[in-house]
């Protein structure tokens, strides 16, 4: 990752400082999977889309930070208790705002993210359509020749 950047930045981003760390064992479900593989799979997918608030650009599924562990515990316990991944995401968003979720929802603040691909598709289509139009012209020339 980048940095001559990439590596450097990444390094800075992912390093675990030794100081200021607690001595508590991780929460029960921070490093332990759920017994039900289907639920664990739901939890795993969800965790990959939640931001570790103490880290730089990492999901809670990629981090050793204690808070990421506690968030994984929350996710797994809630999933195990029968909540759907979307409910868990909503619960976290209601605490931390959209920032905590890597999956932007269409909203007043995020619509450009979803409009741009459509604009690009239309643009791409237009460019290609104009080429097709041109081909017909060329064919006519070929026919004449």
């Amino acid at each position, binding site marked *: *990752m*980048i*940095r*001559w*950047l*990439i*590596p*450097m*930045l*990444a*390094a*800075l*981003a*992912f*390093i*675990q*400082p*030794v*100081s200021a760390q607690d001595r508590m*064992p*991780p929460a029960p479900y921070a*490093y*332990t*999977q759920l017994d039900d593989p289907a639920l664990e799979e739901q939890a*795993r997918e969800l965790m*990959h*889309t939640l*931001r570790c608030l103490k880290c*730089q*650009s*990492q*999901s809670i*599924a*990629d981090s*050793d930070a204690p808070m990421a562990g506690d968030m994984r515990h929350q996710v797994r316990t809630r999933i195990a208790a029968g909540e759907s991944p979307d409910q868990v995401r909503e619960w976290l968003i209601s605490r931390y*705002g*959209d*920032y*905590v*979720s*890597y*999956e*932007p929802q269409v909203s007043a*603040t*995020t619509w*450009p*993210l979803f409009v*741009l*691909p459509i604009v*690009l*598709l239309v*643009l*791409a289509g237009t*460019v*290609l359509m104009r*080429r097709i139009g*041109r*081909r017909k012209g*060329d064919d006519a020339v*070929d026919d004449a020749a």
Partner: protein
Amino acid sequence: MIAEIGLAALWLGAALAVLQLLGGFLGAREQGSELTPLVRPAAMLQALLCAVSFGALVYAFAVTDLSVELVATHSHSMKPLAFKLSGAWANHEGSMLLWITVMALAGGLIALIEHRLPSRMMMATLGAQAFVAVGFYLFILLSSNPFKRLSPVPADGNGLNPLLQDMGVSFHPPTLYIGYVGLSVAFSFAVGALLTRNVTPEFARVMRPWVLGSWIFLTIGIAAGSYWAYYELGWGGWWFWDPVENASLMPWLAATALLHSASVLAARDALRTWTIMLGVIAFSMSMLGTFLVRSGILTSVHAFAVDPERGSFILILLALYIGGALVLFALRASTIAEGERFALFSREGALVVNNVALSSILGIVLLGTLYPLLTEAFDVRVSVGPPYFNPVSAIFFLPMLAILAVGPLLRWRTDSFRRIRLPVIIIAVVTIAVLALVLALTEIGILPLLGLAMSVGIAIASFMPLRGRNILRTPLPIWGMCVAHFGVAVALFGVAADTAFQQERLVAASPGDVIEIGPWEARMTSVSPVAGPNWTAMQGDLLVSYEGGPVRDAHPQARSFWAPQGETSEVALLTRWNGQLYVALGNMADDGRWQLRLWWKPFVTYIWYGGLLIAFGGMLALLGRVIGDVRRRSAELREDRRRADEAELAAS
């Protein structure tokens, strides 16, 4: 003393760059300039001076000259020599010096060997190159002097960030830098062509090796960076769509598009304006990436070179070069005559689709990366991550892959479907068969499913352009294309297989425990402390076997470094032809058991094999082009001599 020599060489280089700038732009005018004969020597001498300067810095790091502030803050006498050397560029000042050195070497090389283009255009190109270089010289000399002395001299240095003490990462930044800087050459050529209104196939042929070369380095750099993240971070991820990764991906996307459009311009004299535009954009993305990473504008928590002064300096350079080039382009674009026309159903048509798709993906990555920055200006914080980038880029990526399979079979200018019907049917049938098979046997997501099926289709399609050719007489660039496209298929296969089939086990284990994961069985035998040159670690000892086969050792470590302090996870990787077992050791739990994280990642290595194949294909193409150029040049030379002989005969 050595440091002063390095600094003096840098100042001299800067002065020569000013000379080259003036001489180049004056020489590009109709009437020329007396400075013209000095331009090429100035470029070559600069290359020498920068090499001396960079050599001086590497020397200071090699002998750990702690009176140089940069050495004291980034090195340590106890570090292994290889990491002392790589410490020279693993920091802001050193990497900027590397940047300007690579740039000067490239400029010197153009000045030395490139004689195909009209003189005025060469002058404009070298002038543009110097224009970019002067900004970076000023940046280094005024705000990032790597040779600054420190007084009093400290007893020892601060050391290098432990995560960077790794061979992979030592050579990863220079690789990417060479790629970034190579694109500055394409940029200079594009500006030169614009200034002298000389957008010709010859220009594309001269620019192409530089684009190809930097694209090879970018490809390797990105693949290496991804592998580094994979094994160093300890969680099995290889691409996170984080801003810094995106910063390296964007120039690659632009360079890939430029590579293909330059081929069209070189072979068919079409896509003139577009190729120039991409030349400007590709370098813009390099600069933008440098800016984003260096200014700290996106990476707030970790203060690496987060210096508003430096950020402002790079922003000014960015605005000057990119803004300037875009304005020049907007003013001049209408004077570039439209190139040759072609039908949509032709090689050019397929390459246009490729370019449109790559540019669209570039647009999406750019928006997704910068969008959080935009909303922050309005005090709203959002995150954009894999759940956005993966599906949205796939919208453009999948059609592009389909065209990638068919495009190389098409003829230039115009073609008919009838001619390529058979290969297309074969590819389609294979793809659909794989799709049906995977669908019947497994339950996987739609994107991995399409990825698996298309990877097999593309793998077959990639060698179809060789059909009906004499294998021995097929030009190297064709081979290069086939290999690179095959590499795309291999990488895609790895991505899809890992996404769809990876298995994860998180356990707390004590010695004697047996852990099963997928086809693997792992027995933990012990956990013991080990010591390295500047770290200590807890090392887990595991015996693992694949489907009851021979037993192999795995030794994951949790390392603690002391200069500077930090912890890293050294994972154990057991590679088979069909994937990797990934073992990471975590902390000790209260009850004395150890956390182990294991992943079975089927075919994950194909991602990087594919990346290397893509780069290798690029190398074949580059080699082919260079050999072709040398041959052509010696043939011209022979022709000249023959004509001279004839003239002599006629005269006698």
